[in-house]
């Protein structure tokens, strides 16, 4: 199948950037989207043109490194799927696609489709953890966790930190990402002692990183490749309010 691509090319953070048109004349329906980009890059190298830079690593949907906007949708048209797990059989011969990097003030473009998501790491460093030093843990079965809580915690913990939620949000808010971490830890008994301190610290950091506020647009949930639910944001907001009311 033949695919026409319009891809954002930007040499570095200072470059203004532009869309460039390419053709992949020989894509196969069995290719993953990233393999289709590999084929494009091999063609570009053969023609002495610099390949398109894009982030990727595990290519099995778990590392969270890949992703770009495909026709304005983070990770492309298939719900619950990272770009690396999207296969070309979901497109038609002759399709024309527009690829752009994540767009958010907190995620500056590094080159082409590559952005800097280190703001996510700083959110975690601000409070997205349980403070337990190595060696001080009691027996694993000393603290019981109801199965339902463990399952809900796991639902939230499945977040891969790809940034699609921020990219898709009209406000470039990191609320789904933060809410997922706050729900993951806050649903477990081990996470209770720092529950309110955590949410307060992460909110402060989010403002520093220039993430926007949540207005319940719900775009994040729609594109999340791990299908994290909006309820984690509600939960975060409740915890945040309680943290403020109780002064913790």
């Amino acid at each position: 199948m033949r695919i026409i691509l319009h891809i954002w090319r930007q040499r570095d953070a200072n470059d203004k950037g532009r869309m460039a048109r390419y053709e992949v004349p020989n894509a196969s329906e069995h290719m993953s989207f990233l393999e289709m980009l590999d084929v494009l890059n091999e063609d570009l190298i053969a023609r002495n043109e610099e390949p398109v830079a894009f982030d990727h690593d595990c290519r099995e949907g778990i590392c969270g490194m890949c992703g770009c906007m495909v026709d304005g949708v983070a990770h492309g048209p298939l719900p619950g799927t990272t770009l690396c797990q999207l296969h070309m059989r979901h497109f038609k011969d002759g399709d024309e696609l527009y690829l752009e990097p994540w767009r958010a003030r907190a995620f500056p473009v590094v080159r082409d489709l590559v952005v800097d998501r280190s703001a996510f790491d700083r959110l975690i460093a601000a409070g997205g953890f349980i403070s337990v030093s190595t060696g001080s843990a009691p027996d694993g079965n000393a603290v019981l966790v109801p199965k339902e809580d463990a399952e809900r915690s796991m639902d939230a913990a499945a977040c891969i930190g790809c940034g699609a939620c921020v990219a898709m949000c009209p406000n470039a808010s990191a609320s789904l990402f933060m809410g997922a971490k706050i729900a993951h830890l806050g649903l477990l008994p081990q996470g209770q002692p720092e529950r309110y301190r955590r949410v307060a610290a992460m909110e402060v950091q989010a403002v520093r990183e220039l993430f926007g506020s949540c207005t319940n647009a719900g775009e994040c949930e729609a594109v999340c490749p791990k299908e994290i639910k909006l309820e984690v944001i509600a939960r975060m907001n409740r915890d945040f309010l309680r943290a403020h009311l109780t002064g913790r």
Partner: protein
Amino acid sequence: MPLDSQSPTGPIETRWDRHRFSLKLVNPSNKRKHKIVVVGTGLAGGSAAASLAELGYNVHCFCFQDSPRRAHSIAAQGGINAAKNYHNDGDSVFRLFYDTVKGGDFRARESNVYRLAELSLNIIDQCVAQGVPFAREYSGYLDNRSFGGAQVSRTFYARGQTGQQLLLGAYQALERQIGAGQVQMFPRTEMLDLIVVDGRARGIVTRNLMTGRIASHLADTVVLATGGYGNVYYLSTNAKGSNATAIWRAHKRGALFANPCFTQIHPTCIPVSGEYQSKLTLMSESLRNDGRVWVPLTKGDTRAPGQIPEAERDYFLERKYPSFGNLVPRDVASRNAKQVCDEGRGVGPSGLAVYLDFRDAIQRLGKAVIEERYGNLFDMYERIAGEDPYNAPMRIYPAIHYTMGGLWVDYNLMSTIPGLYVIGEANFSDHGANRLGASALMQGLADGYFVLPNTINDYLASTKLDPVDATHAVVRDAEAGVAAIAKRLLDVKGTRSVDSYHRELGKLMWENCGMSRNARGLRYALLRIPELREQYWRDVRVLGTGEELNQSLEKAGRVADFLELAELMCLDALERNESCGGHFREEFQTPEGEAQRDDEHYSYTAAWEFRGAGNRPEMHKEPLAFEYVHPSQRSYK
């Protein structure tokens, strides 16, 4: 070079305790004066960096990905073993030790393996406390399953994402230390050389992948946690970025490389679909609990699987191994799949696949039960292969998954370069010739949380280090060397891309040093690899410059190292005239076609010394002694 494993003697149950007591400690107030470089942020590196920082050391930590949370440990699916015996089913530290030594086909060091089994208990406790959402029973207690043919239920898991959850635990512990200022983190930074001053590891040379800036980072000691080298085969279950550059360049600076030919093949991966294939995706081994593996009885049978009657199917694992059937260990299942494909009975467009069929299980248990057990895996298969495994059998084929070989380390996890520690998959230490399922996560975390933070003190407390700064001749030479390699790669301006060479090398390795090996193929590869390497340096095309984000240049350096490591792997495979674990030499098999170990001549670890470019490396032997688990022939008939 004498290889002193520093392994304690005496009763194995108390070796680690007694050894720890014999090690020197560093005064708490002095710890902050010691700088430690940790390279890699997977389970081993992330847990080590966090734990060392908690102790008060000044840690500088590096990863090539954009965040320490992305390391490939994240992709581990199945689980992590621990000898908790929560199920009262006869498990014990000794049994986990025994299973690991036996599973490794008697090519691992007993002392190390026993310590690993002991520490498995602490790992689970630590991870639970960090908030890893392990699967629970309705009572709230931790759930377990049996895994990879083990007869006890000792595997802890978090759905099919155990590696992800354990890594996030370590990552969060690391981020906590970064936030506290105890760790300085350098993401998108690749280690390209080791700095050795007066025979001791004193730092690393790195390239900032965003700016191309080459810099050196000096320290009192260096820890490598950079994972395995499975990507030498191009197609593997590893992440695209996983590479051997850090350990290979340390090897060229004097660290011995142990058992490079010990690689593990995973039997249940989604087969290659075309030339453009960029990686292979693993499907959890648990599928073999209910799926039946078969191929058509006759060669060249191109009928759809549903059209092939029962009498014309060959359930080859059940036929050859009546007692274990489809649950034979990874290496046995893999080799048999290759064998039937080599006979021309493989299925699918390429002929390089076998069926994994759930028809009977669906009939027996109902679709709902199968969906509950394997739903996410079936979805994943359908997403990639475009076929519904509820209606047609899956097609699977083995793929490279893990490398048991790695840099040689002693009981303290120190390499042959004083001050250079190697942990996790990057070292060779605990799995012998074959790794058991759910043991990789255990080893990475044991090394990082519990072993290294206890052994590294001894080196720091007992070693007088002279100050070294960036103007030192050794440092400047190392930086210049790194810059020269990048420049040389950019200056070739040849005709073929880096990937095209990597693919060619991978194919050569898969065919001659893959699932089964023979002397003729290995000798051929040993002739062909140097030719390919010579051609690479003459003809590779790397566009762009060294002063920017240049993904082709990053790959080019890694592939240059794979082209050297591949040769050592073949040499090691050719020298080891026996079959053991993942290393199957066709010349050495029993009359029934099973691996034939040769304990009389090969009960040793082969540790290779780099002797300069173009010179034959020298092999040193660390003899293995088995006091507690007596070598026996594995049998799954």
